[in-house]
């Protein structure tokens, strides 16, 4: 079985995003980018399935700007076998929406003969959380979202899902789309020897047009705003003063 893992290049989780002065979006100039953490978990899970002998090949795919090559190289260094870069944007500020991504992924999955797609449950930049579900619908496959445990046997996947207030275990027939939650695994480090080897692994470059998909956005962003800053506190000298203040604002 081949496992297809989509990976997205996003603003690094350590970075505090800031809005562009014109409010059209988040400023990505001079900002550190890295692999979406949920996708890292997906790559790890796919590699583990390969190590268990469940899968023969792990293919990673990224859709977006050419710089996403670096993200794919990281996935290759972790242990993916080969990578496909679908160039769908030439400016880092150009977004590609979940529907276009899902259409491209559906075409890639068909082309590569994938038997399973493992994707992050959401990307930490746009927080749409929609691509995996759309992809399952487009392919007509089953889906198991927010996975915290995956077991595969006999052409079926038993997936434990993180739901509100507990865990739910479901059984889906393969091929299927599984999206990963935080507790599924702890991704390995890309080691130095593996990074060296990853430089020689195949990375194929395609465009959105190769798959007949128009990546132009359908949504219009009206405004992007930063959260209001918190007003500075004041230090009070006594409990009486505190009670007085609380009375002043009418909470006691």
């Amino acid at each position, binding site marked *: 079985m081949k496992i297809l893992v989509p990976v997205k290049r996003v603003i*690094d989780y350590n970075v505090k995003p800031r809005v562009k002065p014109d409010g059209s979006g988040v400023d990505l100039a001079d900002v*550190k980018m890295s692999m979406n953490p949920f996708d890292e978990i997906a790559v790890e899970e796919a590699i583990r399935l390969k190590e268990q002998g469940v899968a023969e090949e792990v293919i990673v795919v990224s859709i977006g700007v050419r710089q996403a090559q670096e993200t794919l190289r990281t996935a290759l260094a972790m242990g993916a076998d080969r990578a496909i870069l679908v160039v769908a944007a030439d400016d880092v500020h150009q977004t590609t929406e979940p529907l276009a991504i899902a259409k491209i992924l559906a075409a890639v999955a068909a082309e590569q003969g994938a038997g399973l797609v493992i994707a992050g449950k959401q990307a930490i930049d746009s927080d749409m959380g929609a691509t995996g579900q759309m992809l399952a619908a487009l392919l007509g496959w089953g889906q198991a979202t927010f996975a915290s445990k995956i077991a595969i046997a006999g052409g079926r996947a038993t997936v434990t899902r993180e739901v509100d207030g507990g865990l739910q275990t479901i059984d889906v027939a393969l091929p299927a789309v599984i999206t990963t939650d935080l507790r599924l695994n702890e991704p390995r480090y890309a080691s130095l020897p593996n990074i060296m080897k990853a430089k020689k692994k195949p990375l194929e470059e395609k465009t959105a047009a190769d798959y007949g998909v128009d990546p132009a956005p359908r949504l219009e962003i009206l405004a992007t705003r930063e959260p209001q800053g918190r007003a500075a506190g004041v230090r009070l000298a006594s409990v009486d003063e505190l009670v007085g203040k609380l009375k002043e604002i009418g909470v006691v």
Partner: protein
Amino acid sequence: MSGHPEIERESMDYDVVIVGAGPSGLSAAIRLKQIDPDLSVVVLEKGSEVGAHILSGAVLDPAGLDRLIPDWRDRGAPVTTEVVDDNFFMLGAAGQVRIPNALMPPLMNNHGNFIVSMGNVCRWLATQAEELGVEIFPGMAASRVVWEGGRVKGVVAGEMGLASDGTPGPNYEPGMELHGKYVFIAEGARGSLAKKIIAALKLAQGHDPQKFGLGMKEIWEVRPEKFRKGRVVHTMGWPLGRNAGGGSFIYHFENNQVLVGFVVHLNYANPHLYPYMEFQRFKHHPMVAELLEGGRRVSYGARAITEGGWQALPDLAFQGGVLLGCSGGMVNVPRIKGNHNAMMSGIEAAEAAAAAIASGREGDRLAEYDAAVRGGAIGADLRAVRNVKPVWSRLGLVASLMLGGIDMWVANLTGWNPLGTWHHGKSDAAATGKAADFAPIDYPRPDGRLSFDRLTSVAFSFTNHEESQPCHLRLKDPAVPIAVNLPQFSEPAQRYCPAGVYEVVNDGPTPRFQINFQNCVHCKTCDIKDPSQNIDWTTPQGGDGPNYPNM
């Protein structure tokens, strides 16, 4: 100390192994491949990407870049904001006096220099190096020296996944040994491997102690009407006054971004001094507040700077390798510049190593590199200004401006220094005085608009450290902070650290010393300034530390 010597590691042989993807390391890598494309060159960088740990002013003298890549303009180097306006002010608490440019020694003139983000310059240098076939591995910290007798044979890099007790964790990666015919140490000021090599091989013997400053920097997006692209402002005086040497810089860079920095010389005596708060207070000076008011801060960081100059340059060559840039200490203090010398040191080392390898040598001492630094452009640059810092340290700011200024003027005109060579006194750690001998300093609380508390600032360095690893700030004796430093020096680590790593916590019967290593921005100040010299800054796991944008 880091890691397990008994662990088997893969090893790889290169012609040259370079530790650190800063201006010196990358320049060396580029020059090596320019001379001989067949040389195998690897660069290791502990930052998560090239540039992530680079923090510099910076006004760049393009002398080094001109020598390395003469057509840098055509190759899209991010070196585009020419200095158009150069101002030097003495600050008082409420006002300022401009020192006329005519009084400034010509070597301090910034005409023909550029305001740059060295982080972005290094990112660009890395693409140039990779095009030439240099292998660069960011996120790979070189944590140990591989010795072969008295020769530095290589380094261990990429060890990851140690548990907090130092044993291998579930995702442990042992890393690799990278061996080189020559190993270039280009870690910047107070590098953790450089420190070990300098001590083991006694490279500082016969030289003055290295001196340091702590540089803190913020990037501000100011209101467009306040922005003057290419303007350079330096200040001295308030708020440091007589408490410490130092000063500020304000560079109008690009896209309404102004680079605001503050340097405190680390030889200050008063252990109550709080460099971070001096910087925050500085922004409330009317001249600065007027510029920043209505703007927003987008980034914060800090880094130690070498200030020892000519007298403190250690032996730069040792068996198997060399020290580049600020691993040796090549900042020109009055010019407030070191990047040009860093780049030139990389070029010199590359030329020496390439010639040596071509003639069949390896693993020996590249004495010709040491000679080229001292006898060439770098030496000339540092020698002329060698008295400014020691005069400043001993006689204070005004004397240094006058006497040091005269010395620089004469040196500038005649090539001869009337003062001869003054020497640096004690190390910065030894210069720290007893708490009882100095009055505590009362700092105003940050207002959250122009000035910020330290932890808020740390969030703007985008630093992070895998929390399950061993603490990379090692105490030689864990009792010293509370038993010695607290009573004698009021434990200055609480204040000199610009990232709030060190705390004395009073939550029990006796105070305890807490190290919040996740906050560390890799500035190395603790390793330099701890009066007991009890803190050893070692490298954490690769990829950790700040994620500076265009610093």
